Each structure stands twice: as structure tokens, then as C-alpha cells.
């Protein structure tokens, strides 16, 4: 207990002891050793309820590391990809900052090139982002370009990378820049690479230049230019980039001077500023006076919104099932809610996710099976104990599965339940099935998304996250959204239908599921679907080709088409008719977008279908409709219908809520009002006579002093008379002194909580309660309550304190 007696530490870390409560003193040495092991495996323990062998625990631990490594890697990747365009724009901005000025509009005076980086309101997340920016800038090549490398970035691209020497970057944070001196100092130290404050400047030797003197920087810069002067005159001089990470938190006066100084030195040192703005440009205009603003030549960069990042992460990790452990609907909802409601923090989301992954592998014995590459040879299968099998058989999805088997193959069902060996054999197949399901799901989900983006009716558009969430919940395939989309497809006229089918085929062909495989053995469901779509397209093309050959447009056909349109619009509720125009408009926009497929070109010329082909066409449309419908129904089914999905889907939320939505007030109130919840002690039993009363309403002398005081406090009014409070407290304590039986545990507990009082307690054992002691305990309890903010001293009434909380909890 001694180690928790520190006066200065507020928090103690108590690792779970590996030796159970029941083990005696004899085992302490082995316990110590076990504790050391404990940290080697990040706290993973053997799970007792399944009698897990140690290897199984190791597997879980390895799986956790692998899984989390995979996730972080992917997340980082997503984040980088999200911002490549902006990053490369920033890169170009910085590197052209001093070559641009001569080419672009000539200004009568030098302006300080300043990039304004709008990075979203979650400031804690920015650390990573700005480090990334700094890294990007200081590297000598522009960031590897994403899909759209800033096409023709600037008009003045002429003097880029060829002669660029790397820029030097520093990041200033408001916490280092409380005044001008420290801001300059921090900047200079970082530029010069002086890690520790107080180190002398290597350039100046013994001279006593102050470390916030700009001259230091100027000197350093000159020596920098001299040292890499070899490149000749053409060689561009390195620019010095100063990143002001959290603009809003800076002291504006300091910033103002700082910028003025930088701009004064601009003729000697080519500075570029980058300011991170969390809010809007108004912050800049509010923070800096006109005189300073007019020295800046700003350019704005909008980083990717964090909610888009979140969507991208969810898509990459879960929708496309690139990781092993998935998140079920409830926890995902909580993750997203927390993000949207409270902080927009991708960092928060990631740590939350980590917690989930940790918990899954830490506590779920079946998580040893949570492995994509599980095969019949896997070691994990050999390690399964009967406990594991019990767990497996208790899974709802497994029971469902067995029930499903019952009709078709009752024998197998029986084997699944009774025969462990058989079950083991089945597991890899089931896992494989789940994996297949994920992949198909991802692809068809993409198709759904493709459908939705095609008909951009903003009103009815659902964000990706929402769609996925619906799918997790299982409500997607029965929602009205899909029939609605289908109806839009049906309404397409023949040209657009052709284009649509063409695009659809393209989408399927390009999806990673359908890339051509070496052997037919690897063929999967999606390949079959691809063939279906292909055949539809071929027939459609053939049909329209015939049409195009005898492209005659008679008035009757126009009517015909009109009829068709009418028909289809009837099927829709009235409200959509108006939007129809919009839809087709939009589709035309797609069309003119420059897609140059042969068919598309042709269909643009031939617009009408002759009567003869109409029947075939209608049939084809019907088939398309059915195919779409079938695709969704088969592949977007809810994961809960898949056997063993519980192993892959984390679905708890309680523990996560406790960790990430802490409620300090509620916990304090519970601790004070119902201490037994936390203490788990035996002494605080309600007296035998009062069975009806709940424990929370009673004041027991065995409880902690502060709890007693709190319970008395709850019954008081706005002002609390100290003396009354004290007397009541004393009476309760006295009540506890009478029966000698409870004395022992009581004394022990007090000693535990307030170690120092143990001695005095023992002395007063026999005699009546010492008044002095009561008083001392009273005072310390009151002080604690005051510290926690329940009471406040007041001058309004003598001997009274003011109550600060309300409600009778």
C-alpha cells in the first residue's frame, strides 16, 4: 500500500495482478515474474474461462499487433492520399514563392508569401498534419502525386524542381511563442538545429549574441548559402519556411511583430510563412492589423475536411474489408456519433478504434480465429479447447447456421453440435465464406454508390457512411432507397441506358475482384456476375446497332417514346416527375464529359428505337432491373446472417463508452453516494432490519467519512450550517462505535483509505470516540468536498458554507 501514499501523484497505475486474489503469499515471486511477462505481451492474459493454452494467448497478441499495424498503415495511407493534391500545391507554392514574384503581377514592394492552411477545427489533430506538411516541403521532390496531380499547377511552372534546393522548415506552436522573444528564439533554435535551449550557437563560437537575435539567423543563412554555393549562380537559394501551426491561439500582438520582423528581413532572408487556420479567414483579419496584412501575400489551401477523411477511412478499412476485424453497427454508430457530435477528431476516432481492436483480441477467446489467412493447417485450430467450442456453439449466428442445416442436412447439423473434430474442419470454410462475403459486399456496395452518384439528386442522396451503416444494421436492402434508384434506372432512355450499361460493365471490369485470374479455379461469384452484365451489354449493343443501321426517326416513334416516358413517370410518385428533367440533364452532363466510347458516340446519333425492337428493348430493361435487384439482394445482405460473423465483428459498446465518454460528475456522485459500487467491500451491508430500503439512501457509519458527509450534504439546503453538519456527522460515527463486532473491518478500511490514522484509531478502540478525532475527520472530509467543488465558503452567513450542486443524488 505504501506506494500509493504519495502526496504529489494524482494517479496511480495498478496493473492487473496475474495471480488471482485467492493465491497466497507463497506465490509472490512467481507473481512478480508473471507481471514482468505481463508487459512483454501488452497485458494480454490467458483467458481462464476457456482454459486457454499460452500459445493461444500469444496468437491473440500477434494477431492484435498485426491487425493494428495493418489498420494504422492503411489509415495513414488514406490520410496521405486525401491530401496529396493540397500537399503538392503547398509544395509548389513554397518552392515557387521567390521565383514567382518576378513573373507574376509586379508589385511595388515585396510581399511576404503566406500560405493559409485551413485545416479544420480539431486542433489536436493538426500536429500530424503539419508534420506531414513540413516533411513534404523539406523534401526535395514534390509529393508523389495522387490521381490528379495538380494538372498545370501554376502558370509559372517554369522554374520548379530543376534547381530547387530544399527549404528549411520550422514549426512554431503558440505554446512556444508566448512573447516575441520566445517566438524568435524558438524559430532560430529550430532553424539552427539547436535542440536544447541554452546550447550555444555553433556558428558564433564564443560570441554572445542573444539567442533571439535575428542577426543569428541572418548569419546562419549566409553561411548556409555560402556552403552550398557550388551549384553556381543559377542555383536557387533555400527558402526558410515558418509554419505557424495554430494561428488562433497565438498572441496576436506577438504575431504582428513577428511577421513585421520577418517581412523586414525579407530582402536578406527569403521567408515563407504558412499559417494553420482552424476557423476561417476572419481570424486572420481579426488578428492582424491592416499594416501587417498588407505585407502578406496570401494564398489559401483547404485541407481535406475531416469528415471526408473519416468516410474515406471507413470505406478503406471496412467497406472494402481490407482489415480483418470489422466494427459492428452499434460501435460504429458510437464512433461516428462521437466524431460528429463532439470533436471532428480523426485522431480520436483512431484511438477509439484501437481500443476496440485491443478489447476484441484481449477479451474474446475466439479472436484467435479472427485471421484472414486461416486455413485448415493453421495452428490456431489445434489450440481450440472445449471452452472455445462452447463459445463457438453459443454464437447466435452459429445456432442460426445449424438451424438452417437442420432441414437440408440434419446429420451435418448434429455433427456440428456434437463433434468437435468436424467443427474444426468446418471452421476454415466458414471463415473463407465470410471473406468472400466481404469482398462481394465491397464491390456491390461500390456499384450502389455508382448508381447513386449517377443520379445526382442532392435531396435524396445518402452519404456513404450512412449507406454503410444501413447495411450493417441490415436495413439497407429493404430500404426504399434501392427501389428508388432502380426506378431511376428504368426511366433512362435508350441512349443513356446504353451508356449506363457500358459504365456498369466498366466498373465491374475494373474492380479488383474481377481482374483476370490465372486459373479458373480462382473464379468467384463476381466473375459470374461480370459475365451476366457483359451479356446484357452485348445484347443491348446489338439491339441498338440494328437500330442505328436503319436510323429513321418518324413522328410515331417520337410519340412512342413519349408514351414510354409517361408510363414510367406514372410509376413514380408525383413529386419525382419534376425532378426528371434534372436527372436527364445530369446524365447529359455526364455524357458530354468526354467519354468517347464507340457506342456512346453512335447512340448519340441514333435516338429512337423502332417499334419492332421495342419489345426486345423492354425485355432487356426488365432484365437489367432484375439483375440490379438481385445483385443487391444477394450481396448486400446483413453480416449478421453470416455464420461466425461475431468473430469478425466487434459489437459491444459499453466498455468503449466508459473509456471515451467519461462522465466525471456522475462517477463522483456514484463514488460518494454509493461507494460500495467501487469499493466492493463487505462491511457496508444494509442492517438486517431495513430490507426495503436501498443502500443508496442510507448513511452507514462504515462508509468513508467523505461519503457520510456527502450524504448529509445532499439533504441540506442552499446554506449549510457547519455545526449542524458536524454534529450529525459525529452522531453517525458514534452509531458505528456501539456494536463491537464491526469494529475490526471498519478500522481496517479507514486505515486503507487514510493510512496515517491507523495508529490513533487503535488507541481509541475501547473508549468513546475521541471528539478531537471526529473533528479532524470532519475537517478533512469537508476539505475534500470543497476540493471537488461541492461547497464554497461564503461571507454571507457566519458558520455556513454554500452548497454548489443541486439535485438529491
Amino acid at each position, binding site marked *: 500500500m505504501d506506494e500509493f501514499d504519495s502526496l504529489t501523484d494524482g494517479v496511480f497505475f495498478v496493473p492487473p495482478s496475474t495471480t488471482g486474489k485467492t493465491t497466497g503469499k507463497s506465490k509472490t515471486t512467481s507473481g512478480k515474474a508473471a507481471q514482468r511477462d505481463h508487459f512483454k505481451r501488452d497485458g494480454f492474459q490467458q483467458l481462464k474461462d476457456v482454459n486457454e493454452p499460452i500459445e493461444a494467448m500469444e496468437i491473440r497478441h500477434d494477431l492484435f499487433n498485426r491487425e493494428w499495424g495493418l489498420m494504422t498503415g492503411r489509415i495513414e495511407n488514406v490520410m496521405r492520399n486525401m491530401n496529396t493534391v493540397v500537399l503538392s500545391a503547398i509544395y509548389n507554392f513554397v518552392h515557387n514563392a521567390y521565383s514567382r514574384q518576378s513573373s507574376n503581377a*509586379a508589385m511595388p514592394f515585396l510581399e511576404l508569401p503566406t500560405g493559409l492552411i485551413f485545416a479544420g477545427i480539431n486542433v489536436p489533430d493538426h500536429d500530424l498534419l503539419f508534420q506531414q506538411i513540413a516533411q513534404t516541403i523539406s523534401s526535395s521532390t514534390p509529393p508523389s502525386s495522387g490521381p490528379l496531380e495538380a494538372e498545370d499547377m501554376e502558370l509559372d511552372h517554369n522554374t520548379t524542381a530543376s534547381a530547387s534546393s530544399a527549404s528549411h522548415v520550422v514549426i512554431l506552436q503558440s505554446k512556444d511563442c508566448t512573447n516575441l*522573444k520566445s517566438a524568435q528564439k524558438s524559430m532560430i533554435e529550430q532553424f539552427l538545429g539547436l535542440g536544447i535551449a541554452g546550447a550555444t550557437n555553433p556558428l558564433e563560437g564564443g560570441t554572445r549574441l542573444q539567442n533571439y537575435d535575428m542577426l543569428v539567423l541572418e548569419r546562419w543563412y*549566409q553561411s548556409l548559402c555560402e556552403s552550398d554555393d557550388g551549384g553556381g549562380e543559377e542555383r536557387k537559394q533555400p527558402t526558410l519556411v515558418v509554419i505557424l501551426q495554430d494561428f488562433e491561439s497565438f498572441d496576436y500582438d506577438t504575431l504582428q511583430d513577428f511577421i513585421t520582423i520577418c517581412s523586414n528581413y525579407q530582402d536578406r532572408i527569403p521567408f515563407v510563412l504558412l499559417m494553420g487556420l482552424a476557423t476561417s479567414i476572419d481570424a486572420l*483579419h481579426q488578428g492582424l492589423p491592416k499594416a501587417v496584412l*498588407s505585407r502578406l501575400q496570401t494564398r489559401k489551401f*483547404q485541407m481535406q475536411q475531416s469528415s471526408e477523411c473519416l468516410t474515406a477511412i471507413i470505406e478503406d478499412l471496412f467497406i472494402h474489408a481490407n482489415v480483418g476485424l470489422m466494427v459492428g453497427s452499434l460501435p460504429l454508430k458510437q464512433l461516428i456519433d462521437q466524431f460528429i457530435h*463532439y470533436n471532428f477528431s480523426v485522431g480520436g476516432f483512431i484511438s477509439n478504434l484501437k481500443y476496440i481492436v485491443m478489447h476484441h483480441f484481449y477479451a474474446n477467446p475466439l479472436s484467435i480465429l479472427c485471421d484472414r489467412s486461416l486455413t485448415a493447417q493453421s495452428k490456431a485450430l489445434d489450440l481450440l479447447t472445449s471452452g472455445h467450442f462452447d463459445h463457438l456453439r453459443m454464437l447466435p449466428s452459429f445456432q442460426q447456421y445449424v438451424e438452417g442445416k437442420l432441414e437440408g442436412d440434419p446429420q451435418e447439423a448434429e455433427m456440428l453440435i456434437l463433434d468437435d473434430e468436424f467443427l474444426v474442419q468446418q471452421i476454415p470454410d466458414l471463415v473463407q465464406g465470410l471473406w468472400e462475403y466481404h469482398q462481394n459486399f465491397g464491390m456491390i456496395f461500390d456499384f450502389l454508390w455508382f448508381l447513386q452518384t449517377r443520379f445526382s439528386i442532392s435531396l435524396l442522396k445518402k452519404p456513404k457512411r450512412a449507406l454503410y451503416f444501413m447495411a450493417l444494421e441490415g436495413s439497407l436492402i429493404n430500404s426504399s432507397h434501392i427501389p428508388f434508384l432502380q426506378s431511376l434506372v428504368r426511366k433512362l432512355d435508350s441512349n443513356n441506358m446504353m451508356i449506363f450499361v457500358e459504365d456498369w460493365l466498366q466498373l465491374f471490369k475494373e474492380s479488383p475482384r474481377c481482374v483476370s485470374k490465372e486459373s479458373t479455379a480462382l473464379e468467384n461469384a463476381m466473375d459470374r456476375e461480370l459475365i451476366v452484365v457483359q451479356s446484357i451489354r452485348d445484347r443491348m449493343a446489338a439491339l441498338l446497332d440494328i437500330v442505328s443501321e436503319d436510323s429513321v426517326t418518324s413522328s410515331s416513334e417520337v410519340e412512342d417514346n413519349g408514351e414510354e416516358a409517361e408510363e414510367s413517370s406514372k410509376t413514380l410518385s408525383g413529386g419525382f416527375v419534376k425532378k426528371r428533367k434534372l436527372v436527364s440533364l445530369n446524365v447529359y452532363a455526364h455524357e458530354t464529359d468526354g467519354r468517347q466510347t464507340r457506342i456512346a458516340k453512335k447512340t448519340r446519333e441514333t435516338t429512337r428505337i423502332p417499334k419492332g425492337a421495342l419489345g426486345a428493348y423492354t425485355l432487356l430493361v426488365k432484365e437489367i432491373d432484375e439483375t440490379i435487384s438481385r445483385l443487391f439482394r444477394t450481396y448486400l445482405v446483413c453480416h449478421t446472417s453470416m455464420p461466425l460473423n461475431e468473430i469478425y465483428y466487434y459489437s459491444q459498446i459499453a466498455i468503449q463508452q466508459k473509456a471515451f465518454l*467519461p462522465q466525471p460528475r456522475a462517477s463522483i456522485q456514484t463514488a460518494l453516494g454509493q461507494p460500495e459500487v467501487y469499493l466492493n467491500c463487505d462491511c457496508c451491508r444494509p442492517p438486517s432490519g431495513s430490507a426495503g430500503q436501498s443502500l443508496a439512501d442510507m448513511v452507514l457509519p462504515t462508509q468513508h467519512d467523505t461519503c457520510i458527509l456527502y450524504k448529509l450534504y445532499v439533504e441540506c439546503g442552499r446554506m449549510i450550517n457547519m455545526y449542524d453538519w458536524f454534529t450529525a456527522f459525529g452522531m453517525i460515527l458514534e452509531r458505528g462505535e456501539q456494536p463491537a463486532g464491526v469494529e475490526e473491518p471498519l478500522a481496517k478500511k479507514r486505515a486503507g483509505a487514510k493510512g496515517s490514522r491507523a495508529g490513533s484509531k487503535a488507541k481509541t478502540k475501547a473508549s468513546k470516540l475521541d471528539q478531537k478525532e471526529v473533528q479532524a475527520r470532519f475537517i478533512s472530509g469537508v476539505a475534500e468536498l470543497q476540493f471537488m467543488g461541492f461547497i464554497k465558503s461564503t461571507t454571507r452567513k457566519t458558520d455556513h458554507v454554500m452548497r454548489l450542486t443541486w439535485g438529491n443524488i
Partner: protein
Amino acid sequence: MVTSPLQLLHEAFPGRAKQIDQILGFMGKPWAATPPSLLINGNSSLGKTAVLKATLSAMLGGGSGGGSNSTQIQTEQQLQELRRRLPSRYAFLDCVECHTPRLIFEHAIYQLRNPPPSQDKGSVVFPSTHASTTGMSEKKEAATVSRKRKRMTTSPLDWNKCENVNEFVEWCRKICDTKDELDEFHETHGNHRAVSGSISKHQNETRYLVLDRAERLRDTAPTLISVLMRLQELTGRNICVILITTIVWEKFRSKTGGYEPIVLNFPQYTKSETVAILRKDLPAEEEEDLDLYMRFVDLVYDVFQRNCKDLNEIRHLVALLFPLYIKPVKEGKIQKHEGLKLHRHIQAYFVEAMDKLYLREISSTEWSDRTLSTASGSMSGGSGSTGGGGTGGHVSTAPGGDRALTTALDVQNVFDLPYYTKFILIASFLASYNPPRLDMRYFAKVSSTGSKMTKRSKVAAAKKHGHDSMGSKLRQQLLGPKPFPIERMLAIFYSILDEEVEENVNVHTQIASLVSLRMLQRVTPMDKLDSIKCKCNVSYEMIKTLAKSTRFEIDKYLYDFS
């Protein structure tokens, strides 16, 4: 053609001839004793810094050569050479940069003990010889040139520590006493013997200590001002202090009194002076458009001078607008002499410049990018660029033409907040602008007691204000936000939320982050943890948009607000 430095100076700074002469008169011959101090004041960007720097460097920094007759030319050149090589006679300090006395001292000593910053021809501060016409492009080059030149002249840094006034005075004496070749030069040429006579026999050249933006001294080193005023007396040497400031001397005066400097005021430029200065900004390559340019400058001056007296701002505007002005001429759409047409053409840009450019809502590069792309867009019909799709839509640098940029601009003026954070902000706004006594009326969830309260509080409100709320002087809207205790705000927050939210730690972190984003302003000092009070620092417009996005009817809850 040989021009004297004086002439060059006059040429470089139209409208400042008188002031330059005054400064030169004040300085006298290089070795002559000067008054102890000079104060130059005048509004912003009236050329105080530029003129003084140029003058000093021309006279004392070996700025440029030239004389009226041949023998003089020789000695002059010799002198210039020496001046370039020998320790500088003046130190030019910026008080923003030198924000402690120590920095002032050390920088001054350093500059006075080292050669003056080399001023090559066409350098930043003193555009000489042909610089008058090649104005701006020259300056940019000059910046790089001077950067490069500086490198060449670096000598091992000879830095001297100087922590207090006494040491500084001592140093000044030492510096003034060092006799170098320049002083000897004067002696051998005997050109000051005649004037100064026997008294100043040992007198070396005057040293100047220039402090730009001297108004800062009042904060950073208030006691230093009076010391500087009598630096000549304290050192007993030939040293002169020049302060440059935007404020009048009266604001410097200390209670204890002290020496008064000679005050030289830089007056506002007249129109003709302004136009003459702007004339020099015309890039050399567009010299043939001089007529047009002058007409344009005239126009800009007339349009903007009421709002904007600042020379730099007008230069800024001219530089950015002129290319637009002459574009139709260059493209042959409008003839040069069709003044009215041109005028009409540029008028639209003026309006935009007025509210965007002048306020720096968009910067010069963004402006020129934008106007450039508008132009190209209008050429090509401007309809084809709807593509790009949803992938990179709001990247500000995506060259999506004029429209993309404007939308990017708009996008950045609104930003999203987490859902509950919006409500926290709305609650803070309500707490800041509503009187607390009406909280019951607005936010109490129980309606039965509410009706009773409403009447009473309404009466109370009317009584307190005395008259109808319409013309009330005490309207909080006009008084600005009032501080409120966090607890009150939280109570409002939980009451305006539709759903039940349990109090949790995230709400508090959001409050903290709002404070750090300056949307809430904490009025209790940081070290006080009890009963924190804040103010809402957000405009009504912003709250309105926030409320709209959350479908919260803010107007229902605001008292006496419009």
C-alpha cells in the same frame, strides 16, 4: 551626364525635396556638430523610412558617386571608396525588431563598427541612375542582388556584449573616438579646417543613430528615450540620434522633462505628388503606354483617395488594376483614346477591388490569378469546365477558373463545427446576450410554472428598462457580449438540446477548444479554476447560420434582439 547625389535623391523621391534638404541641412558637413536629436514624424508610408535611409546611405554610406567638377570627382570617388570600406557612420535600427534595450545597444554598436550595408546601384533603398524608370522590377532584382552581395562582404562577426546604458555610452565614446582613414582624409584635404576652426580639431565625423518606429520605445524601453535624447551630452561626442515615428513628440515626453528634439514633419502628399510617385512605378517595358498609365493613375486616385490615403495602398491597387485596364487596348478591342469606354470597362473591377482587394480578402496573387483566368475563360466561352467531378472539388489551387476560385473563397468563410459544439456556441451566445433573470422564461422546461414566470418577468423587464425595448440604450446587442458563468451556459445548452445528453467530458473539452479558437473568450484569469466566466466572441450572423444548420430557431430565444 553627371548628377549629384542630391539631385538623384530629389529625383527618387518626388515631393520630398524639401524634407531631404532639411535633413541635409540638419546634418551639415560630415564632421560638423549637429543638434543632439531629430524626430521625424508623419503618417504611415509617407516615405519616412525610405527617404532617411536613402539620404544617409547616399551621404555616408558610399551610396553613389558624382561631383560637379573633375578634381572633385576624384576626391569624391576616393571618399566613397573609403566610406564603403570603413565602419559605418550610421546605425539604422528598427524598434520592432530591437525590442529590448540590449538589442538596441548591441545592434547599434555592431552597425557602427562594421562597414555600412553595401548599397549597390539600384538597391532597395536608393534607386539611383536609371532606376527612376525601372522601378519595381529593379527592386526585386535588387533584393536578390543585395542578398548575394551581402554574402560577399561578411566578415567574421565581431559582436560586442552591451547590457546597459552605461556600457552603451562607453561604447559610443569609444566608437566616436576611433579615428580612421576617413577622418584623416578630411584632415589631409583640409576641407574642414576652414569651417570648424580650432574647436573641433579632434572632432571626428558625426555618428548617427537612427531608430525607426520609435513609438515602440515607449513600451519596450521607456527610460531609454530621455537617455537617447541626451546621448550627445552624456557621451560628449559627436553623435546624433534620429527617431522616426508616426506619432507626435508630445506622446513621448516623460514627466520628468528632458531634451527636446528638433521635429521634422513629413506632410501628406498632394495629388500631383502622389501621381509623380506613381509615375515611377510604371514598368519600363510599358513605357509607351505612359499616357494611358497617367490617365489611369489619375482615375484611381480620384476614385480611391476618399477611402484610402495610404500611398502604398494606392500603389498596390494601381499595380494590380493597370494590367486589366490596358488589356482591352492590347487586345485591340478598345482604342487608346476611347477614354470613356475604358473607364466603363474598369469600373466593375473598381467595385470589386474596393471590397476585396483593399481589405486584403484576396491577396495580390489571388487577384491576378483570378483576373487572368476570368479573361481566359471569357475568351474560350467558359462553359466547358464543369468537369472535375466530386473528386477534387474544393481544392483552392485547382485551376478551375474563375468560378472555382470564388467558390473556394466562399467555402473558406464558413467552416463546420461538431454538432454539439454548435449548440455550445449558440448557448454561449444566448448566455452572453440574454439577461440571466429571463432564463427561466426562455429555457425552463416545465411550462406550467413558465407562464406565471413569463408575466412577472415581462413586467420586471419593462420596469427596469423604463421604456419600451425599442429605443433602449441598455440593449445588450449594442453593448456587446456579457460574461457569463460556464454553469449557466451549460444549463442553457442542456435545455436547448432536443435529445437527452448526459454530461460528459467531451462537452468540457469542446468548451476549452472553443476558447482556444477564440470563439469564446475566457474572462477569468487562467490560474483561477473556480467559477469560470466566458464571453461569446462570435457575430450574430455566424450564430444565425449555425442555428440554421442545426434547425434551431435562435430568434425565439433572444431577448430584445434584432
